């Protein structure tokens, strides 16, 4: 390719000079533009400084992905990242660095805000990002795996056995309380004391059996409910009292009624006027008896119980409207009442029977069953849909045309529109819930599929609240909840102080190194210093172009890489001296020195690069910065030693130095 060795050296040298000039222009673009006069302008590229140099904050948020199916988790977390990015951009941070990371099963969002003036304000703003979710009714219940099913069955069989064991003990006459202490699994009462229960206490199965038992007896079978097995003993029985100071016995009435409604009353379908209705019911009343009441009700009543002859079954006082109840409870059994007027129309009541209500004092032994909820957790009433805050395009305040109350209009992006159309389509007639920050804010029922991509949150806002919420939503809404778990903040002044000092210190160190090199290695030392200066220009240009984020530890890595670059030169020069001492001609000595120093340089640098490779995967930005600059430095330092120093030596150190070997650091 080249005509001679000399020409090759010159070509390489020229390329190095051009590379150096380009690097210099990139490094000092600002200076050049100041004095360029007729030359073309150079684009000024700034260094990208890390937050420990510029001041700023490093925040780690943990994303709660528990509500999201496994395959969609990463995309939800990326949605969070986009929203935070938008949020932070509104805030005006120059170059926010926002990443997602996955550690084990944890999804995180790392936010680095370098140079942000008011860190606390920024954190507050991210923290205020609303969480917007759209949920539909949970149709599919979580299903048990066959193993879980088996586990549940065998547990429940065990429980059944245990319950039968306890039952046979108490039936044989063992002390109920002691047996309860051994067997009862009800957490609230170890001794099995359930206390007084009535029809409305929520123990319907137990109540039903208690009604049939004599006081002091134990029911001789197990009562099986969804929750478990009960063994009960009826301790005592008393009539239930009405609430209030007079303490009447509480009663139940069994009655039938006949209703004639009239136009204007709720749920009334006939067209009778109120007067006509009244005339009609008076007429029926005149012929009504206990015997024909059922038949009359069947033919005349407009109530829903007409088909059953007006029979209402047993009911308590609270179950009926007041006018109706007071008549029903006051007339005698077998009597037909006078006309009663209620909000439903005109009634006639036929009282069939009445009885006292009882309360029962129960002791019980409860053996728990395992249910599906115990294993898979309680089923949520609401389940997430694909539509989340990340699909929101815009929100604005508008007023409800009916009552003029403020509402928030949501506009979705294209993807969001499709999701919303799908959701409304499959939920016609069913409610869809809009959750804000984890709470349902609005649960409208879908009347028809909505394809336009607009939704409305109508809640109990005042105008101020509505405006604020719209503003918050416009700045971005999160698809899933996040939590701040790690914060590292560096005040701007501390960073800048540190940078200025460390840079100065680095310069002092480098000057000392240059002096040392020249002192020990003379002319080659000077060449090495030149080669190192070129190395410095090149690496700074790479830092700008890449761009590498410079942190304090990154600078340390850079400075250490200078040490490595020096080391490579030192290795070569030591070899060079040795070769010269063996009285080899200079050009041969240079070649030998480079050839023999290479394995050491290579092996040493490879081990450093291996270390850096591990460090880069370490993810903490401080350590990462160090590893990146060090590895770039090591790679470039090999180039500087093997290519630049060599060319310089081949050009400068020629045969004319044969008799001036002191210049090369050799004592004659």
């Amino acid at each position: 390719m080249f005509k001679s060795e000399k020409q090759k050296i010159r070509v390489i040298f020229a390329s190095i000079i051009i590379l150096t000039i380009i690097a210099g222009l990139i490094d000092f673009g600002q200076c050049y533009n100041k004095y360029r006069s007729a030359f073309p302008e150079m684009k000024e590229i700034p260094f990208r400084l890390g937050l420990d140099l510029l001041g700023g904050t490093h925040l780690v948020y943990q994303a709660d992905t528990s509500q999201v199916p496994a395959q969609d988790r990463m995309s939800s977390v990326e949605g969070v990242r986009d929203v935070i990015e938008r949020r932070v951009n509104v805030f005006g941070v120059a170059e926010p660095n926002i990443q997602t990371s996955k550690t084990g099963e944890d999804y995180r969002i790392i936010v680095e805000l370098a140079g942000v003036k008011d860190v606390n304000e920024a954190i507050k703003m991210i923290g205020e990002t609303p969480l917007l979710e759209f949920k539909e009714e949970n149709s599919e219940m979580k299903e048990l795996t066959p193993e879980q099913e088996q586990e549940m069955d065998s547990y429940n069989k065990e429980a059944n056995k245990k319950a039968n064991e306890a039952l046979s003990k108490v039936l044989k006459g063992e002390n109920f309380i002691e047996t309860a202490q051994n067997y009862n699994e009800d957490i609230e009462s170890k001794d099995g004391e359930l206390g007084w229960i009535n029809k409305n206490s929520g123990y319907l199965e137990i109540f039903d059996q208690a009604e049939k038992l004599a006081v002091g007896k134990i029911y001789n079978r197990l009562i099986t409910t969804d929750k478990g097995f009960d063994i009960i003993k009826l301790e005592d029985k008393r009539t239930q009292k009405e609430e209030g100071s007079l303490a009447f016995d509480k009663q139940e009435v069994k009655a039938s009624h006949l209703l004639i409604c009239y136009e204007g009353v709720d749920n009334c379908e006939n067209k009778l006027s109120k007067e006509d209705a009244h005339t009609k019911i008076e007429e029926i009343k005149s012929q009504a008896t206990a015997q024909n009441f059922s038949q009359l009700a069947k033919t005349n009543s407009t109530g829903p119980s007409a088909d059953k002859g007006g029979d209402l079954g047993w009911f308590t006082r609270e179950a009926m409207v007041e006018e109706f109840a007071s008549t029903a409870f006051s007339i005698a059994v077998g009597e037909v009442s006078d006309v009663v007027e209620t909000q439903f129309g005109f009634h006639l009541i036929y009282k069939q029977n009445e009885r006292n209500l009882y309360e029962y004092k129960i002791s019980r032994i409860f053996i728990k069953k395992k249910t599906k909820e115990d294993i898979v957790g309680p089923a949520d009433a609401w389940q997430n849909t694909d539509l989340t805050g990340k699909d929101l395009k815009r929100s604005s305040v508008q007023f409800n045309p009916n009552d003029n109350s403020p509402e928030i209009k949501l506009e979705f992006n294209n993807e969001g529109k499709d999701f919303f159309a799908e959701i409304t389509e499959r939920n016609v007639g069913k409610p869809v819930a809009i959750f804000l920050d984890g709470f349902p804010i609005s649960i409208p029922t879908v009347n028809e599929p909505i394809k336009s991509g607009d939704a409305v949150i109508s809640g109990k806002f005042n105008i101020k609240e509505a405006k604020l919420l719209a503003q918050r939503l416009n700045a971005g809404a999160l698809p899933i909840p996040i939590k701040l778990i790690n914060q590292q903040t560096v005040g701007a002044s501390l960073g800048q102080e540190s940078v200025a000092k460390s840079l100065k210190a680095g310069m002092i160190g480098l000057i000392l190194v240059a002096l040392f090199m020249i002192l020990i290695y003379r002319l080659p030392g000077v060449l090495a210093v030149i080669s190192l200066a070129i190395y410095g220009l090149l690496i700074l240009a790479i830092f700008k172009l890449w761009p590498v984020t410079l942190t304090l530890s990154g600078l340390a890595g850079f400075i250490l890489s200078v040490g490595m670059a020096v080391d490579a030169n030192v290795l070569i020069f030591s070899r060079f001296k040795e070769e010269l001492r063996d009285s080899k001609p200079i050009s041969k000595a240079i070649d030998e020195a480079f050839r023999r120093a290479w394995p050491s340089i290579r092996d040493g640098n490879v081990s450093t690069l291996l270390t850096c490779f591990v460090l880069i995967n370490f993810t903490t930005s401080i350590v990462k910065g160090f590893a990146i600059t060090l590895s770039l430095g090591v790679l470039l330092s090999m180039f500087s030693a093997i290519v630049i120093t060599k060319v310089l030596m081949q050009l400068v150190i020629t045969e004319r130095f044969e008799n001036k070997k002191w210049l090369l650091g050799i004592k004659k």
Partner: protein
Amino acid sequence: MDVISKSKIWLSISSVLIIASIVSLLIFGLKLGVDFTGGSLLEIKYLQARPEVNVMQEKLADLEIGNINIQPVGEQNVILRFKEVSEEKHQAILNRLSSIEEISDEINKEESNAIAITEDGKEVTEKFNSSVIEEQRFDSVGPSIGQELKTKSLYAIVIVLILIVAYIAWAFRRVSKPVASWKYGLSAIVALFHDTLIVLGIFAILGKFFNVELDTAFIAAILTVLGYSVNDTIVVFDRVRENLPKSHDDFSSTINTSLNQTIGRSINTSITTLLVLLSILFFGGETIKYFVLALTIGVIAGTYSSIFLASPLLVLWEKVKK
């Protein structure tokens, strides 16, 4: 210079240093920073007079943030350590600390720093008084993150060690006589443990007496020391590798010759690196002081071990074999 014949001396010095390091590690232990333990670290600069520690303690007492360790630093700074807190608590702390001035003046003792309640019932704090204090650093690390970092650091160190042994074994694969190539790797690893232990030992002492805490950057420093130490050792071994086939001397003299040929380079390289490190250590910024100190100690130990530990160990291997 006859290094090998005085092996016993060098090896004894190394042994003493290693034992001393292990003992100080066992007695004092390493003082881990919030990076690893979880918790909060807050550094504040008082622009005017810095209040007494007990005044600050009192002022923060009712914030329910548990134990607070307050350590004055330099003329104006103070470092507070406490458990991990929420952002609201963090602001409340700054608020309290910036209003200490007013307490000593007995002005608005109660109202000045009260936590305001907004209309929607959320607790928010007024902005702290930035003419009194400047927040220089705040780290808050959840305990799980700290644990994770510990595990990760250990993994990183183990992986680096494995990679290095593997690489050396590979690079020296053609050298098998009189000492097997993996023994070069093992000697390098012994040298490496030596360097790391000395750095850890010194930081255990620094932690005990000067409250120096280990952070993530320290892990980076340790790993760099590993890389540097191996680099140094490899240069010597490389010369041994080169000299062995053409040497007429026995193994130990060949090693001695190789050592003498490389000792100038080893020392010169270390001096140049140390020149840079020491100037950053003395003139550089506060934040990387201990990072650079760890590197400095590691480089000195690494230079010593590459000359006086790794090569004598090779000779020892060979003698044991006989």
